[in-house]
């Protein structure tokens, strides 16, 4: 077998290990799921009315739940990535990782396995978020092709965030440290077009940031695909950001994993 097929096989083995962990400790998956659903209910049910009134014409004629759902989906990926940073950091402290390092296996396979496992869980979470959103009034105008495209963008975003937070998990010395680092991608969507159009933020640094940060084009692309709002150049930016973040996160995580620690 070639090196590549060994790498695939080792990653698949590590993915099975990750699945078994999730099976033994379902709370981790459940807690990653509850937060986005709570946010969805909070923003639609509690803030929704005020936001709708404040947004007025900018939000268009669409209902706020239609505007909100794509943003919550992006946050779902963010929160899943946050939990992953913590579990990677925990895992690295285990003796089994030292054993993997002394074995002739594909080096990044243990990380790849974790990324695939977490991506799997994130997709399940996202499906449930959409289900709950539909229950409280979300209606999509998307064609099957647009749904497939949206799923593709979502997976790209998830993988990008996961590789980045795997690197955070490797970088941090404690799970608490990993959690703080991973809060950055989990909370960046708050300063984006997730809850209100970035154009409705008061002029200044925050508005510029919200309009230009990576999450905004990704959210706008998803929103366009799912609810038919204009996408424009956002799609290129969205795909571009995902590729850049994935590459950076992957290379960073790999080099951190290969580094030797004096202990």
């Amino acid at each position, binding site marked *: 077998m070639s090196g590549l097929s060994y790498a695939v096989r080792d990653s698949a083995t590590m993915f099975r290990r990750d699945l078994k962990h999730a099976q033994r400790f379902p709370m981790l998956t459940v807690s990653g799921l509850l937060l986005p659903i709570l946010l969805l209910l909070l923003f639609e049910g509690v803030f929704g009315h005020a936001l709708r009134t404040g947004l007025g014409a900018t939000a268009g004629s669409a209902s706020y739940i239609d505007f909100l759902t794509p943003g919550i989906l992006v946050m779902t990926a963010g929160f899943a990535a946050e939990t992953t940073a913590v579990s990677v950091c925990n895992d690295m402290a285990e003796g089994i990782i030292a054993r993997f390092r002394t074995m002739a296996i594909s080096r990044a396979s243990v990380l790849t396995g974790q990324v695939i496992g977490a991506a799997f869980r994130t997709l399940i979470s996202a499906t449930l978020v959409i289900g709950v959103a539909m229950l409280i009034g979300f209606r999509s105008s998307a064609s099957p092709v647009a749904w497939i495209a949206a799923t593709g963008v979502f997976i790209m975003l998830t993988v990008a965030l996961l590789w980045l937070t795997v690197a955070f998990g490797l970088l941090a010395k404690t799970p608490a440290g990993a959690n703080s680092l991973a809060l950055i991608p989990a909370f960046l969507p708050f300063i984006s077009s997730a809850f209100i159009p970035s154009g409705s933020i008061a002029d200044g640094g925050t508005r510029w940031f919200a309009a230009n940060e990576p999450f905004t084009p990704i959210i706008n692309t998803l929103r366009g695909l799912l609810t038919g709002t204009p996408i424009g150049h956002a799609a290129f930016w969205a795909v571009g950001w995902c590729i850049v973040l994935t590459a950076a996160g992957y290379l960073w995580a790999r080099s951190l994993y290969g580094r*030797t620690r004096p202990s």
Partner: protein
Amino acid sequence: MTIQKAPAGPGHEASPGTQPAICARGLRKSFGDQVVLDGIDLEVAEGTIFALLGPNGSGKTTTVRILSTLITGDAGAVTVAGHDLRAEAGKVRAAIGVTGQFSAVDGFLTGQENLLLMADLHHLSRAEGKRRAAELLEKFDLVDVGKKMALTYSGGMRRRLDLAMTLVGDPRLIFLDEPTTGLDPRSRRTMWEIIADLAAGGVTIFLTTQYLEEADQLAGQIAVLDHGRLVAQGTATELKRLIAGGHVLLRFGSADALDRAAALFASAAARDDEALTLQVPNDGGVRSLKDLLDRLDQHAIAVETLTVHTPDLDDVFLAITGSQR
């Protein structure tokens, strides 16, 4: 002195047929300012048990971590299983198995799943992996707990599972970093039997320990590591000759008795006037103890208590590091 210095320098390159399992020359490692390994030379012959003996902090674990490719040394030429440690780390990894000081099992998986994980990572077929896992569970007396999470295992069971996982890939060379530290006496015995069995099967074993008794029981060659330097190397018998047996501690009821006894054993005794004790060299055997007591009896010297002190690691260090300083 019978200290056999580690062979060094050129002219000792092994011929292909008798290539040593491990050969290290001038291995050094520092963490920041702290020198952990200060140039050590090791040679471990194929199919033997080699023990690296030393107290905590002497550099034993660092040596294992370097030889097993976990970290890199700062200097030194090392070959493991015939491959250069730096240039061919992948080939080294394929030939070795490592059981670390801290359990390298996945606590969230069952014993059986841990073994199957290793089988998958060694690219065994499903059927072969299952067969191997079942065989190892049986051999290591883990059948009853094979379907329980490793988290729930006792220290001895975890250690056995750990070693079983190392054996899935049939390594020719196994590193065991303090395999019995923290185990109860019975588990320690079991571990010793397992290790001896492995060696009998032709596997080379590199073992670290802080117990002289363990090195004595298992290893053909023993190297003593202290503060990152090898201070002695040889067989257990050779090392024991260095420490020349133990001693007995005699405690007397009066200063007068102590005086008379001290006069009797004048040449080799160390006395403590405060505690009224006298330390007399003695190997602790029944014969020599009887001789000692007979002699005291003949001179009508009453002894309150007698303590036999058998040689231990402390004595080895005293004898070896003391004589070199």
